[in-house]
């Protein structure tokens, strides 16, 4: 009997289980999967004692199941970026572009595990975490929220990796591979980790009450700004503005966009860190916003050139996803549609504007992620609803939130720009950042990786695996025509 009554109360609480609600009811911490997004934990001061009062948080299988999937989905976004970018460059630079993304798995992933995670999610202070989790010490399968800590770490790692890859779009076709790797590695430590701490690690932005559900500021504005800096410091491509540089394989770019859309559900809905109403809401908004952006974008294209382009459509989907990211779990599906539609405009015109400037942000990372991210962050301050898990925004009588959002945006822009600039300059001291004109002409694939994306093998002569000078080569080939190659 009492059980039933209790059940009803709990069930009722669960129904309103938007991330804010549950923390008011201690019991739920034990039994339910409703632990809110980490970002909100810090914002709700009264949650801490409640949690302290409750027995150790338990791992919830259902939440674990969803987060396992979410993490895998977000990890798929890195190849997604690789194909999206890879299809948009010229064939002679396709592999280099894809490698800039895939290699981030190695460099940023390891850097994150060794130190980044701890700097971002170690308790630490308002601006930076500490080293309690360095080298993944103290990261076990005990519960962090309602999922195993190791899983939480993996989920965050997937974000760190994909964020770094976004920057590549601004310096494709020309940045030397070594310096690039050095840059994204250091960037993950010195730029990404701190900002992640501010927003999700209990840092000052979260304390301030800035809303960023899945990383509009941490991921997109941050990457977008760093991208511009990189484009400027690395410099223009050899023929930029002189010859037309066309996407060599649009279907590949389309594949990238598709994988991004797919993976983004893990990115946004996964940020609820539980399989609950918040995740469901975030999922719906993440699905709807890009749909609206796509409609508006195709309309703008049609108006301007009488034709809706495929590259435009792929771009629109990404922009829509970027815009909804900070708001995903905080706004209603209806608002998501409006946000998606509005979000198309700034990015669309930013792209047109950029192509008239001397700024060689080759694949428009600024317009897509930077501008899109800012639009999203600000619109979040307007459309957020307590009823949907956020703090009320402008439309719901809380203009203050809009100011807070602007603060978050501003802080991110400044920090990211300054530190990214410093890092690039530092690396430039060690080695040249940009490939010389000849290498750019031959193509980055051959000069940076000694490969070509598409080969027919005509006139390719086999060389003994350890032959050194090309001169030797041909004779070696002749000599070994016997088959011992």
């Amino acid at each position, binding site marked *: 009997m009492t059980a039933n009554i209790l059940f009803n109360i709990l069930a009722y609480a669960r129904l309103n289980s938007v991330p804010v609600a549950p923390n008011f009811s201690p019991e739920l911490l034990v039994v339910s999967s409703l632990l809110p997004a980490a970002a909100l934990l810090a914002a709700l001061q009264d949650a801490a004692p409640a949690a302290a009062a409750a027995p150790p948080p338990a791992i919830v299988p259902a939440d674990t199941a969803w987060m396992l999937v979410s993490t895998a989905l977000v990890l798929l976004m890195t190849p997604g970026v690789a194909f999206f970018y890879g299809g948009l460059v010229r064939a002679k630079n396709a592999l280099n572009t894809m490698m800039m993304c895939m290699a981030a798995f190695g460099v940023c992933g390891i850097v994150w595990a060794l130190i980044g995670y701890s700097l971002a999610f170690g308790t630490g202070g308002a601006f930076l975490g500490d080293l309690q989790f360095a080298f993944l010490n103290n990261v076990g399968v005990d519960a962090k929220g309602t999922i195993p800590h190791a899983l939480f770490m993996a989920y965050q790692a997937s974000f760190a990796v994909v964020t770094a890859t976004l920057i590549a779009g601004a310096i494709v076709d020309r940045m030397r591979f070594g310096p690039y790797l050095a840059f994204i590695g250091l960037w993950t430590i010195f730029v990404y980790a701190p900002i992640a701490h501010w927003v999700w690690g209990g840092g000052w932005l979260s304390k301030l009450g800035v809303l960023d559900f899945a990383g509009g500021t941490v991921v997109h504005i941050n990457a977008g700004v760093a991208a511009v800096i990189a484009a400027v410091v690395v410099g223009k491509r050899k023929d930029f503005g002189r010859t*037309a540089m066309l996407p060599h394989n649009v279907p590949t770019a389309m594949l990238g966009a598709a994988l991004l859309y797919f993976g983004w559900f893990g990115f946004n809905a996964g940020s609820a860190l539980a399989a609950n109403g918040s995740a469901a809401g975030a999922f719906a908004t993440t699905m709807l916003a890009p749909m609206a952006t796509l409609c508006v974008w195709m309309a703008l294209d049609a108006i301007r050139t009488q034709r809706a*382009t495929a*590259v435009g459509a792929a*771009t629109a989907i990404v922009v829509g996803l970027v815009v909804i990211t900070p708001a995903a779990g905080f706004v209603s599906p209806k608002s998501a549609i409006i946000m998606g539609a509005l979000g198309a405009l700034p990015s669309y015109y930013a*792209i047109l504007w950029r192509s008239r400037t001397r700024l060689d942000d080759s694949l428009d990372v600024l317009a897509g992620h930077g501008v899109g991210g800012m639009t999203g962050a600000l619109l979040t301050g307007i459309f957020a609803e307590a009823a949907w898990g956020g703090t009320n925004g402008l439309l719901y009588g809380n203009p203050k939130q809009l100011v807070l959002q602007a603060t978050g945006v501003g802080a991110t822009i400044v920090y990211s720009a300054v530190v990214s600039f410093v890092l690039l300059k530092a690396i430039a001291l060690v080695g040249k950042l940009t490939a010389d004109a000849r290498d750019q002409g031959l193509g980055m694939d051959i000069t940076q990786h000694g490969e070509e994306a598409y080969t027919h093998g005509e006139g390719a002569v086999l060389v003994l695996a350890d032959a050194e000078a090309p001169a030797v080569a041909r004779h070696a080939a002749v000599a070994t025509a016997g088959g011992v190659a």
Partner: protein
Amino acid sequence: MKLIVAIVRPDKLNDVLESLYRAEVRGLTVSRVLGHGGETDAVETYRGTTVKLGLQEKVRLEIGVSEPFVDVTVKAILDAANTGEVGDGKIFVVPVEGVYRIRTREKDEAAVTPALV
């Protein structure tokens, strides 16, 4: 001995092959090329960038024929490749001083007359 080089529209290729076949012209080599002539250029847009494609897709045929076949061949192509619209292409007749059939090392006339296998 002449080498007849013809540039035609891709979508006319099959008709040309057909018509050459009927004209008993068996051997030929084809390649995809890009051409520029009097055609108005297509304009494409990629994000902010608008480009004008000065070159149109065409197909290039290369046909080595013995004197008596020259006119037949040219006529066959002219008939099949013509649409009357700008962009139909050109035919060039180039002199040849020697032809070899690699398989048999036959030379000249013998080399281009259909192989009897």
